[in-house]
């Protein structure tokens, strides 16, 4: 902007000329008059015509009708402006001269020199803001036209531009640079060494309490990085600036500074949103997986139940006819008894042998029928999952009860069997929400297996010093509890561990086990109670089963899930 004094005033030759003269004088006067606006908390209290005109509005009413003083401030400058207003209102320091950007009525951007002062307005303090068209720095005023064009061009740029010569002296800087760093306009004229700006930053506390002689050389070194340096820095007023140093052919530097605070904020928001979405997706995947497993288990359960029931009918006949046929055979023999005399001794012998075979066959049919019946019953238990109710249960009590039950059952089968118990039950375990019947079944299963393994090792090893030991421990782990059952029996071969939970897999001699015990236990612990079931074993040393149950389990029963 030209200084008014430099404006050539045309000589007045006529009234029209005089009017024209007066008009241009008035225009000049208005142009040099500072725009004045008073506001508090963003609300515009007053503005003068000069301000309205500076911003491209016809009347002050249009300005007063704006949403607030901040609606004229571009987004990237909001934080700094608000900060400056607050500083001004709290009355700290002298009036501030700053260089600022404002939206004009046509939403174009215009740079202004700004003076902020606190004023008494009506019932309290307010911010008085004086805006004038930005003036070239006095040191720039004498620049040739080329230089002035360059200055105007870099001032129009949306990013801060700082030009340094090879000695790190300022050659020029644009308005955005001053705004970004919150420097008063005109503070660092060309020729100022860049270390002065760093000193200024240090004095106003930008670099914290670190000693000056450490900070300044470190910061200076950054300007001298050869090549294109990219650095993202959080500058003292809280904004994030992307700083790039581009060396020039003549040894100087052009440093551009992009205000990326908003971009960073959006990036962060996006990242958070993405993380949230991913977490939800992960949860969905897990739930889906669980549902698939549940669905498989459910259909398997239904199938098993169906098969089991269908088998019961033919079994009914097999078992009953086998038994009945035995009875009929006995009756037949009773009837035929008197006939023996009429047969040759050889024939009697043959008849006896045949009858013996028939009876033994019938016994076998009955035995196997009963065995099939047992399997069918376990299958039904398996698919039914007990159907017990969820209750708050004192876990240690449940463990003790299951232990006593299984021990007596094992002793009933083999009165010579006895074992040492080591109980290590943590009282902090307390009560737990679970299906007591089902968990009890799991425990009885495990204890029975342990007793079987202990007894087997005792029989096999023949070592009189072998002491069968069963170690039972419970542990409170905050949001979950752990039950550990360890025996020093025969252990489990590595090749078998993987198949342990497979339905119908058993290592017991044919007829002794159904192979459903651990499979059912796994189902109860993992699918019904959302727990974990871990096995560790070294053959002929130990087997250890660890059950982890969450304290907060969703109350589902296997039976209920099946119906879904």
């Amino acid at each position, binding site marked *: 902007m030209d200084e008014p004094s430099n404006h050539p005033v045309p000589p007045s030759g006529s009234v029209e000329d005089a009017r024209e003269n007066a008009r241009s004088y008035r225009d000049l006067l208005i142009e040099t008059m500072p725009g004045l606006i008073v506001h508090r908390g963003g609300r515009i209290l007053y503005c003068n015509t000069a301000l309205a005109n500076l911003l491209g509005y016809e009347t002050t009413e249009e300005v007063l009708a704006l949403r607030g003083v901040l609606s004229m401030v571009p987004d990237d400058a909001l934080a700094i402006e608000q900060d400056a207003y607050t500083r001004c209102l709290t009355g700290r320091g002298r009036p501030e001269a700053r260089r600022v950007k404002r939206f004009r009525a046509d939403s174009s951007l215009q740079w202004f020199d700004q003076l902020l002062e606190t004023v008494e307005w009506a019932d309290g303090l307010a911010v008085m803001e004086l805006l004038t068209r930005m003036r070239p720095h006095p040191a720039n005023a004498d620049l040739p036209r080329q230089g002035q064009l360059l200055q105007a061009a870099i001032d129009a740029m949306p990013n801060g531009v700082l030009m340094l010569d090879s000695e790190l002296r300022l050659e020029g800087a644009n308005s955005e640079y001053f705004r970004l760093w919150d420097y008063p306009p005109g503070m660092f004229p060309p020729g100022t060494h860049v270390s002065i700006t760093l000193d200024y930053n240090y004095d106003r506390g930008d670099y914290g309490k670190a000693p000056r002689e450490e900070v300044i050389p470190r910061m200076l070194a950054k300007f001298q990085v050869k090549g294109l340096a990219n650095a993202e820095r959080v500058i003292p007023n809280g904004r994030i600036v992307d700083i790039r140093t581009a060396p020039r052919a003549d040894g100087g530097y052009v440093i551009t500074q992009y205000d990326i605070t908003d971009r960073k904020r959006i990036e962060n928001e996006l990242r958070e949103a993405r993380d949230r979405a991913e977490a939800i997706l992960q949860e969905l995947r897990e739930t889906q997986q669980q549902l698939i497993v549940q669905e498989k288990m459910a259909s398997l359960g239904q199938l098993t139940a169906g098969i089991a*029931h269908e088998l019961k009918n033919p079994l009914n*006949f*097999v078992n*009953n*006819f086998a038994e009945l046929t035995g009875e009929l055979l006995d009756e037949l023999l009773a009837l035929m008894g008197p006939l023996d005399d009429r047969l040759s001794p050889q024939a009697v012998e043959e008849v006896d042998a045949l009858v013996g075979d028939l009876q033994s066959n019938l016994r076998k049919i009955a035995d196997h*029928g009963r065995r099939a019946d047992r399997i069918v019953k376990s299958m039904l238990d398996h698919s039914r999952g007990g*159907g017990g109710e969820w209750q708050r249960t004192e876990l240690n009590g449940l463990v003790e009860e299951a232990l006593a039950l299984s021990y007596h059952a094992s002793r009933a089968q083999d009165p010579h069997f006895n074992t040492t118990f080591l109980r290590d039950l943590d009282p902090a375990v307390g009560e737990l929400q679970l299906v007591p019947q089902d968990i009890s079944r799991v425990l009885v299963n495990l204890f029975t297996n342990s007793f079987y393994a202990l007894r087997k090792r005792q029989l096999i090893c023949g070592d009189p010093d072998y002491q069968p030991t069963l170690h039972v421990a419970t542990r409170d782990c905050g949001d979950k509890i752990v039950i550990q059952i360890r025996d020093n029996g025969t252990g489990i071969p590595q090749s078998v561990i993987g198949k342990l939970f497979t339905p119908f897999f058993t290592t017991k001699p044919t007829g002794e086990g159904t192979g459903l015990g651990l499979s059912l236990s796994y189902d109860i612990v993992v699918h019904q109670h959302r727990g974990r079931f871990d096995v560790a074993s070294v053959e002929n040393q130990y087997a250890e089963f660890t059950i982890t149950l969450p304290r907060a389990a969703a109350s589902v029963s296997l039976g209920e899930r099946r119906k879904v």
Partner: protein
Amino acid sequence: MTLGILVVDDEPDIEDLFRQRFRAELRRGELAIHFATSAEEALTKLNSGLQPEAVLVLSDINMPGMNGLDFLGHLRTNLPQVPVVMVTAYGDTENRRRALDIGATDLVTKPVDFNVLKKLVNTVIEQKSAA
């Protein structure tokens, strides 16, 4: 006197089984067993009058057509004086509760233990004769 029992089951082999299991009682003329392979057939037989009259009904639950529980419901409405014992492979608590709710005297699970069934039949018949 001869007491009549009606056995309802869709498996035809049930007839052989019952006849052989109760052969002593049948031979002595204490029992007469009628058979029906569906609930519908059983209802027809009951309506047309059985000789000797059935004093006890044993019925399967899972049958094609009318199932045992519906059949039981029919009997409870039309023949309330005849006790019904359900014989089923589905011996779970749910089925038992439903059968007893509708009015079954008892429920026996398959495979049938005839010693138990015989005792049950005898008790029912004794109660019946005492009444």
